[in-house]
């Protein structure tokens, strides 16, 4: 007994005791579901039994038009978020970081407000603003601009616009704060040296800020790719459920949810999930390699 106590309290054992909860959680809530998902994707899962059907689920996915729509929607949405939610927040952060802006704390706090709001609440608010009635806010706006009214959530283009507007509303402030903290890490003396050399604002931005903020940009890019491809709740809330006319708001995860939970076809849904995982991992690995992340030795 004394030996066990000594063992437990030794410097060699202690770290493993500390890390044990993670190892358990990793095994139960990551490895197990991950491998289950892969195995289930090769099965036809009924109420009682699961039959091995090889690649049948994947073959079905190749021909599944609804799945293709979902993939296209998710891809478009992801690209849209990358184009909108990386350059603009970066510019806003640079502006915020300058000494020109007064009362910074107030703006930072307010820009963070959307991140505090549950998607259920914000999604409901936006759905009511994107109503097809002329009295809804978005139609009031388009009428003011002389564009007439739109059936926002019934047409493909305006639906994607609505989803992107919700996304920009939620994440502009958060991404700006990421970039802001990245800017803080840049050595001020570099800008001072550039000043002495007579560099203008644009040159400083191009040759100092952009290259030195790259780690932050890569971080934001990586999480945006995942978040964009895995988007589901925004669409779920905008259409008050998981169905939209002609599936204009259906995403990959929306389809996974529909198949797995609503139609109880777990095997097929898991195949959707595995495809999503492969796409997301591939894009991110390519992106990280292209950006040279794996080349530089990361400091511990």
């Amino acid at each position, binding site marked *: 007994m004394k030996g066990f106590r000594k063992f437990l309290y030794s410097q060699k054992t202690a*770290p493993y005791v*500390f890390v044990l909860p993670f190892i358990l959680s990793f095994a139960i809530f990551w490895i197990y579901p991950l491998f289950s998902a892969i195995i289930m994707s090769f099965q036809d899962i009924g109420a009682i039994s699961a039959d091995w059907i090889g690649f049948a689920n994947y073959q079905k996915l190749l021909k599944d038009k609804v799945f293709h729509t979902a993939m296209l929607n998710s891809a478009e949405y992801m690209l849209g978020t990358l184009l909108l939610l990386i350059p603009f927040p970066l510019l806003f952060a640079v*502006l915020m970081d*300058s*000494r*020109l802006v007064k009362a910074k704390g107030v703006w930072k*706090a*307010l820009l963070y407000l959307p991140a505090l709001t549950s998607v259920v609440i914000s999604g409901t*608010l936006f759905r009511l603003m994107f109503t097809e009635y002329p009295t809804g*806010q978005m139609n009031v706006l388009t009428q003011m601009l002389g564009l007439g009214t739109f059936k926002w959530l019934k047409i493909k283009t305006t639906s994607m616009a609505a989803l992107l507007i919700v996304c920009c509303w939620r994440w502009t402030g958060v991404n700006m704060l990421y970039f802001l903290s990245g800017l803080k890490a840049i050595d001020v003396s570099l800008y001072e040296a550039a000043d002495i050399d007579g560099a203008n604002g644009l040159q400083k931005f191009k040759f100092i800020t952009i290259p030195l903020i790259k780690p932050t940009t890569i971080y934001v890019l990586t999480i945006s790719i995942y978040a964009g491809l895995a988007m589901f709740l925004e669409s779920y809330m905008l259409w008050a459920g998981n169905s939209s006319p002609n599936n204009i708001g259906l995403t990959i995860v929306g389809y996974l949810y529909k198949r797995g939970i609503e139609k109880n076809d777990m095997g097929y849904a898991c195949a959707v999930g595995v495809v999503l995982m492969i796409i997301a991992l591939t894009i991110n690995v390519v992106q990280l390699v292209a950006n040279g992340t794996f080349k530089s030795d990361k400091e511990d």
Partner: protein
Amino acid sequence: MAGNLDMKDSKPKTRATKIGSVFATAFFVLLCALIIFPVFAGLLASFRPGTELIRRGLAINLDVSTMTLDNYKYLFGKNADSVKYFMWYKNSLIITLLSVALTLIVCYFVAYGLSMYNYKLKNFLFFLVIATMMVPFEILMLPMYKEMIKIHLIDTYAGVIIPGICGASTIFFFKQYMQGLPKELLDAARIDGCTEYGIAVKIMLPITKPAFAAMGILCAMGSWNAILWPLLVLKGAEKFTLPIGLNTLLTPYGNNYDVLIAGSMFGILPIFIIFLIFQKYIIDGMTVGAVKG
């Protein structure tokens, strides 16, 4: 602070700087106005009958004469809807408190084990922490849902809370924070006869407090607003969290929009207050991964 667009301090304020300052500040005023807009519109709408939302959609309407406190009176009144709403509110509070407390304690110790010792598997284990971040949760949710049914955690608070306790980002943050702490403290404490576990609890934990604050708030936000996983796990209406409960009010008939809109606005409140108090920590907490890369 790295000034990119501005003049140097030593220079007197020129006219151009002043004009630039007005424009730059005005830009953020405008941006913030856009950001607040939907919530502000929702707040105004919460003082009008819910049926109006169904018939007209949501738009800014500053007409004070048609505003009433009826929705809030109803929400805080004695009726079935109010009872239901505050039951969800209470459930959300319980789940949030429990998951924040458990997440912080567990992740602190895991991060401690990953940063305070040198051993063979250390880097491999940390790699596994990072690996869990590389797979979106949505892919794992169906097998996890089946797993929950199997181990009888479906429709329980435990089922909602436990899978999220070892949050990779929380472990990551604690680890980053601890790397900056002096390790000599450990040896000094060991010489004084402190056990390994005693050191972790009595010596290192108190000096890690700021990290607890930062992560605590981020966990609270995540937990208070979580939807997808609670939506799958919780089945009985008496166990619903606030977002899940509010979601059930979204019927096509819209007979519940009074409670929905007033309840939504009141549901933002607790997290908003916490945010205003701990704002500084939140920004530290969420940006740690972005800088270190």
